């Protein structure tokens, strides 16, 4: 038994060394997300374009694209202007879209709590190839917002998105 453990020990050590990783947070700052009015009762599309500059961010952390093992949207918040609150909205679904990546649903808020100016969405448990979005020069946050009644003006939101980046180290 002891010789078996001694035999396996170098392999276990090798496995641990190879699988070491580092987890970092990549936050977007405030992204302008706009739904052009008039908003109609039902589903309306709000879009916010964002340039991730992900490669530069990785370089600042002493890493490169090749080091990225996994990326995941951890938190998604939408901030409403002071002049309005969330009572107008019933549900929100959030997607990521980009030229060279397939659109992916990453968050939902159903129902939207009333009387709020900061909405925190529930993020998807299953997310695939999120790094593909961050790698691109530009990506779009798409918020499908169901509103309860017709309303005339544009809807200007601010989005703050936090990605968890796992690096091979």
């Amino acid at each position, binding site marked *: 038994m002891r010789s078996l453990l001694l035999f396996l020990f170098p392999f276990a050590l090798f496995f641990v060394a190879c699988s070491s990783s580092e987890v970092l947070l990549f936050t977007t700052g405030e992204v302008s997300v706009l739904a052009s009015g008039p908003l109609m009762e*039902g*589903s309306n*599309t709000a*879009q916010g374009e964002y340039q991730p500059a992900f490669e530069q961010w990785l370089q600042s952390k002493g890493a490169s694209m090749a080091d990225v093992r996994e990326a995941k949207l951890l938190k998604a918040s939408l901030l409403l202007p002071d002049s309005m609150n969330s009572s107008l909205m*019933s*549900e929100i*679904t959030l*997607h990521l*879209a*980009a*030229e060279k990546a*397939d*659109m992916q*649903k990453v968050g*939902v808020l*159903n129902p939207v709590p009333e009387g709020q100016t900061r909405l925190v969405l*529930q*993020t*998807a*448990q*299953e997310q695939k190839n999120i790094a593909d979005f961050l790698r691109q020069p530009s990506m*779009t946050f*798409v918020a*499908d*917002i*169901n509103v309860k009644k017709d309303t005339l003006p544009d809807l200007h939101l601010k989005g703050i998105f936090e990605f968890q980046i796992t690096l091979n180290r």
Partner: protein
Amino acid sequence: MYMKSLWLLCGLMVTMMTATATAQNNGDQLIGLWEPSNGKARVKVEKIGSKYYGKIVWLREPIDPQTNQPKVDKNNPDESMRSVPLKGYRMLKDFVFINGEWTDGTIYDPESGSTYSCVIKAKDENTLDIRGYVGVKALGRTDVWKRVKLK
């Protein structure tokens, strides 16, 4: 002689630019409101970046009789996304317009929770052939969608 060549070149460039613009316009023909043959829903197609996406904006039966609440994506394989409302659901994703058809996209069937590869062809400006398939196009099913004209 030099002047003639210059005019020919300009003419060629204008023709190419017009052809490109026409191709883009043809692609944008997909934008609008459409109804599948079963009439259960209406799907609004819009363009985000250079790709086309469609979402459900109207349901004939919006309320789930089991819960008495608005229908949600209860068959989604990801449990955390089962509260996504079907009203507003993006069932057509990532279509690009190539050689007179919208391709490389997917269609989601909320009734089964399954996603299929999909290609869309316009029969005329108000009729679409929507073909969902798994693997090869030959093994699929085509549905005819009609444009909904708002009064």
